[in-house]
C-alpha cells in the first residue's frame, strides 16, 4: 500500500472562503479506507467545516490513535501537522501538544475501539481536564482495522459478522462525556451532513473540551443484529479479510433528517439504527437534562443526535493552570532560565 497524493489541479472557478482558500486546500491524500466507509463521510464533513470556518489549515494539529478512524487525519488538511500516535492514547498526546502551544486548533480523531476500551481512561481524563480541543469519535461499534471484533460501544445482544452475540453492556460515550464535565457534547451521524458540518464547526469554535460522537457505519463489519445467516459468516469474513475491495455495498449511507424526528437507518448489512434528531427548541445548556433526555430515549432503543450540551463560559486547561498567553514552545532561554544569580542564591540557601 502506498500513500496516494491527490492531483494538484485547481479549477480556477472553485469557490474560495474569506482567506482565499478553496475546498481543495482542506483536503489531504486519497483515502485508503473501504469504499463506502462512514469515516470518509466524516472526513468530508471536517473538510467542509474547516473550509466554511476559514481556518488556516496549517494552524490545525490533527492527532489520532490507531484504527481505521485514526487513519483519517491523513485524508484532510494536508497542510497541517498530523500525529497518528498509539492505540487509545490520542488524548494524552493531544493534551501535551495543547500545553506546548495553546494557539493551534486541536482536532482529536479516534474510534470507538480506540476510545471506549484501551483508551477509556485517557478519554475520560482529557475531558475532565478541559483540554481545548474537538474530540471526535468515529463510532462504528466494531474494531474495523482488526477485522470486526466488538467494540465497547456495541449494543448488548447484537451479533458480529462471525456470528458472536455481544453479551456485554455497551458504553455510551456521550453520557460519559456529560458526566465527565465536557463543556460541549454532541452526537451525530456520518451520513447527516446537514447536521454534522455545523456541529463540527461549533465544536471547533468552542473554547474548551468538545466531544463529538459520530455514528459511522462500517461497510466491512457492521453489526448483524438478528441476522440469520450465521452459517455464511466465516466465509464472508474471510472474503472481507482478504479482499476488502470486493464488498458489494460500496456507497456511503446518507441521511436527510428533519429535526425532532426519528429515522430508522439501515446499515450495510441490513441491521438498523433508530436516530432521533434533536428538535429546534431543545435546551442545550442543561447538563443533567441532557443526560436524562439521552437515557430516556436510549431506553426506547433510540440514539439521540444533535448538540446535546454546551457550557457558555467554558474554561480550558490553560486557564486552570494559569499559564502565560504566549505559547510555551515559543519561550526561549531568556524567558526560562533563571541564570547564575538565582543559582547563587539557591546555593546559599542549601548550606
Amino acid at each position: 500500500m502506498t500513500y496516494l497524493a491527490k492531483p494538484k489541479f485547481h479549477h480556477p472557478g472553485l469557490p474560495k472562503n474569506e482567506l482565499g482558500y478553496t475546498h481543495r486546500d482542506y483536503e489531504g491524500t486519497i483515502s485508503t479506507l473501504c469504499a463506502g466507509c462512514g469515516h470518509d463521510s466524516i472526513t468530508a464533513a471536517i473538510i467542509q467545516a474547516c473550509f466554511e470556518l476559514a481556518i488556516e489549515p496549517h494552524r490545525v494539529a490533527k492527532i489520532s490513535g490507531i484504527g481505521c478512524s485514526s487513519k483519517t487525519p491523513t485524508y484532510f488538511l494536508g497542510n497541517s501537522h498530523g500525529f497518528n500516535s498509539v492505540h487509545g492514547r490520542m488524548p494524552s498526546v493531544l493534551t501535551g501538544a495543547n500545553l506546548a502551544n495553546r494557539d493551534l486548533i486541536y482536532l482529536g480523531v479516534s474510534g470507538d475501539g480506540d476510545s471506549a476500551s484501551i483508551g477509556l481512561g485517557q478519554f475520560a481524563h482529557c475531558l475532565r481536564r478541559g483540554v481545548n480541543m474537538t474530540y471526535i469519535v468515529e463510532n462504528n461499534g466494531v474494531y474495523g482495522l482488526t477485522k470486526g471484533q466488538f467494540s465497547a460501544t456495541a449494543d448488548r445482544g447484537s451479533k458480529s459478522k462471525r456470528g458472536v452475540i455481544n453479551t456485554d453492556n455497551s458504553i455510551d460515550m456521550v453520557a460519559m462525556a456529560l458526566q465527565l464535565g465536557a463543556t460541549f457534547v454532541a452526537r451525530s451521524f456520518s451520513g447527516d451532513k446537514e447536521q454534522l458540518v455545523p456541529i463540527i464547526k461549533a465544536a471547533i469554535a468552542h473554547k474548551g473540551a468538545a466531544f463529538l460522537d459520530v455514528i459511522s457505519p462500517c461497510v466491512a463489519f457492521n453489526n448483524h443484529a438478528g441476522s440469520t445467516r450465521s452459517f455464511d459468516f466465516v466465509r464472508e469474513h474471510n472474503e472481507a479479510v482478504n479482499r476488502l475491495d470486493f464488498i458489494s455495498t460500496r456507497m456511503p449511507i446518507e441521511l436527510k433528517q428533519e429535526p425532532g424526528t426519528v429515522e430508522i437507518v439501515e446499515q450495510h448489512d441490513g441491521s438498523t439504527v433508530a436516530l432521533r434528531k434533536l428538535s429546534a427548541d431543545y435546551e442545550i445548556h442543561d447538563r443533567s437534562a441532557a443526560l436524562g433526555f439521552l437515557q430516556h430515549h436510549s431506553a426506547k432503543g433510540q440514539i439521540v443526535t444533535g448538540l446535546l450540551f454546551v457550557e457558555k463560559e467554558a474554561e480550558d486547561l490553560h486557564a486552570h493552570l494559569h499559564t502565560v498567553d504566549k505559547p510555551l514552545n515559543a519561550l526561549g532561554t531568556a524567558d526560562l532560565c533563571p541564570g547564575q544569580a538565582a543559582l547563587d542564591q539557591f546555593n546559599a540557601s542549601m548550606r
Partner: protein
Amino acid sequence: MPTATPLSRVNDFVVRFANVNGSGSASANEMFARAILRMGIPVAPRNIFPSNIQGLPTWYEVRVTEDGHLGARGGTDLMVAMNPQTFDKDIASIEPGGYLLYDSTKPYPASKFRDDITVIGVPLTAICNREYTDPRQRQLFKNIIYIGVLTALLEMDVKAVETLIAEQYKGKDKLIAPNVKALHIGRDYAVLNLAHPIGLRLRKADKVGNKIFVEGNAAAALGAVYGGATVCAWYPITPSSSLADAFTKWCAKYRVDPTTKKAKYAIVQAEDELASIGMVIGAAWNGARAFTATSGPGISLMQEFIGLAYFAEIPAVIFNVQRAGPSTGMPTRTQQCDLISCAYASHGDTKHVMLFPENPAEAFEMGAEAFDLADRLQTPVFVMLDLEIGMNHHLTRPFQWDDNRTYDRGKVMTYEELEAGKDFGRYLDVDGDGIPYRTYPGTHPTRGSFFTRGTSRDRYAKYTEEGGPYVDNMQRLLRKFETAKDIVPKPLIANAAKPSKYGVIYFGSTAPAMDEAIHMIEARGHGIDRMRLRGFPFHSSVNSFVADHDFVFVVEQNRDAQLRSLIVNECGIDPVRLVPILHFDGTPITARYIAKAIGDHLDQMTMKPAKVTS
C-alpha cells in the same frame, strides 16, 4: 566494662538512628546531620525507610566524615535505638567497641546487650511524660531530647542546633522556644547523669567549604528548570515523586511572570504513566521541552510510547529514579536495575540514550543537559537516577550555570528557511549524522508540514510499507545513535599511581563508595585504574579501556550485571574480560563491600607461586 576497647574517633564515625516510621524523627535526625555540617565537618546521611506511612522500622544514618567519604561505609559506631521492634537487630549491627544509646525508661536485663559495646541508657519516655501532657508532643520532643543528649556525648556545637531550630520554625516562631527547651532538657540530663563525652567526638573543622547539601531529585528538578523544560507530566511513584514536587516548587519560584503572575510552565499530574509519557511526547512534538519523572514500574508502562518516540524521533526526557524491582520489588530501596529496560525500551529494534549522574551536582547538570541532547538527537533521553541519589541529601559542589549558554534546540527548520524553499524531508539525513530536520507544527502555511506516525514511511514522511525505505530509516536511526556516542557525556578515567593490569568500570551512585574503596584497595597493596561511565551509548574509550587491561571489574547494583551485559552487547567485548561485582540487597553499595570484593579477587590474581627450593 566493654570487652572491646571503646571506639575513639574524631569526626569520622557512623551514627544510626533506629526509629518508627511516622514518629516525626526525620526532621530531628536531619537537624543532627545539618548541625555537624555547620561545624564544618562533611556528613553523608541516608534515609532507609519502609514502604508504608506509619509503624514500620526506619533508619537514618549519618556518616560523619572529615575526609569527605560520601558513600556508604557499612557498620554503625553509635546506634540510637528508638525502635523496640528492631532493637536486637540494631544492637547486633554495632561495630565492636561501639556505643548504644537507648530509652531506659523500662530497664532491660543486661543479657539484652552485648558486652563489647558501651551502653548508654536515658529514660526518654519518662522524661517526656514528666515534661509534656500532649501525646504528640511527648513523641516529637523525645526526638529533640535525644539530639540534646548527643550534643553532650559527642561535644557537638549546641548553638548550631539552636540556629537550625530557629531556621526550621521561621514563621512559626512559637515553636522555637519549646524545641530549644527540649534540646536543653536532653543536654542537661546527659551532662548531669552520663559519662561524657564518649570516644566519638566532633571538632569544628573547615572541610565543607562552599559545598551545598541537597537531594538528587531536587537537583535534577532544578536542572529541568535551567534546561528549559516547560511541560512536566507525571504520575506519583516512589522514589521519583519528590522530583516532580521539587519541579513544581522551583517553577513557582523561578518561572512565574512577574507582571502577569502567570506560569511559564505547565505541570499535569496525569492519570497514569501511559498518559504522562503521552503528554510529554505530544508537547515535545509541538516544540516544548517536556519531561516526566518515574521509576521502574512506570518505565514498564511507558514502553510502547517510548518506542514510538524513538521511531517518530521525538525528544522526550525521562527521569528514572530507580528502585529495587522487579515489579514492586522493594519500592523504597535503591538499585541500578533498569539499565536494560531503559536502553532497549519498547518492542522492535530500539536503543535509547541514558545519562548517569553520580551525585546531585551532576543530576543538576545532566538534568539540564538532557533537554539539549534530546532536542539535538530528537530522541528520548533517560536520566538514570536512583533512590540513593534522588531521595537523600548529599554534600555536593555548588551548582553553576554559564549565563552565555542558550538552549540548543537542534535541527529545526524555521519559517524563513522553509520560505526560502529549503528541501524539507522530515527523515532526510542531510548532514550524514543520522539526524534529520524537523519543523514545529503550524510553522508555515504550505511547506514543512508532515505526518508523524509509528508506521514506516519514506524520507519525506510519506506512509509506506516497502522494505527498502524501512531499512533505510532504521539504518539512519543507528547512524544517529553513533552520533550520540560523541555527544553524550564522556566517561572519566582515573589511573592508579603505578600502571595497572586491572581496571574497574562503574557509574552513578556507586561513585562515592568507589572513590573510597580505591583507597582501601590500595591499602591492600593493589593499584587499579578506573572508568566512570556517564552516558550511553558508550564512548569508544570504553573499548580501549577494556583492551588496555587484563581484567576489568564492572561494579553495579543489580543482580544480573546489566551494565556488563550492555558493554558486552554494545562494544562487542568478550564477557570473560569483565568481572561482575554485584550488590543488590536494596541498600546502597558500600566502600567496604567493593574493596573486599575487588581486593579478594586481586589477592588471588596476584598470588605468587611458592619458591621451589630443592
